[in-house]
């Protein structure tokens, strides 16, 4: 039972344009959502997060949007840069779980083309 789904295994975007990565979840108990970035041979690195009491959170070039009614979140990267090429994972945690147990999606490989 995949509670967090990233339905696009890969995405290719031109440098300077907007990258939009999508994530869907099924568990209504999730109340905190995070995006991680992973380069080969490295561990995932935290990018940005959002609580279920918000619908948007921005940090520099990165913005996460949360649509609770659709159980959908997205990560926008503007403008996209070559260094953004990596695998992106969305993750969720349930009420009361905090950092105790994250449920990850399968990941989306983002490639930024010059």
């Amino acid at each position: 039972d995949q509670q967090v789904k990233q339905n696009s295994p890969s995405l290719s975007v031109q440098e300077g344009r907007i990258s939009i990565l999508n994530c869907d979840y099924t568990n209504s108990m999730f109340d905190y959502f995070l995006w991680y970035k992973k380069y080969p041979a490295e561990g995932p690195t935290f990018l940005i997060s959002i609580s279920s009491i918000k619908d948007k959170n921005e940090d520099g070039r990165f913005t996460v949007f949360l649509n609770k009614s659709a159980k959908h979140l997205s990560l926008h990267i503007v403008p996209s840069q070559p260094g953004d090429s990596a695998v992106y994972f969305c993750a969720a945690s349930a009420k009361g779980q905090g950092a105790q147990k994250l449920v990850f999606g399968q990941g989306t490989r983002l490639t930024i083309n010059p």
Partner: protein
Amino acid sequence: DAGVTQSPTHLIKTRGQQVTLRCSPKSGHDTVSWYQQALGQGPQFIFQYYEEEERQRGNFPDRFSGHQFPNYSSELNVNALLLGDSALYLCASSLVRYGYTFGSGTRLTVV
């Protein structure tokens, strides 16, 4: 300031054998979590240790066990290895809510 350190980086084991993976948390962190990442999948939560006790566990069999030492470092043990245990094993440490720092992982191959 060193981040999360995992050892070894790679290892190859035979089916039925036992393996121990090690993790040193980031300085100041007291909680260690372990995740398994199979090829093409996202990380899956195995368990978490705090104050030398297993605080929470994911859907993994009892063949997977762990330990946390007084200096907060941790070990993950897997007994009776199966081919399906081949994966990247990630250790993550934290202190405050949602403050995970991941290590680079140990790549385990079971043949």
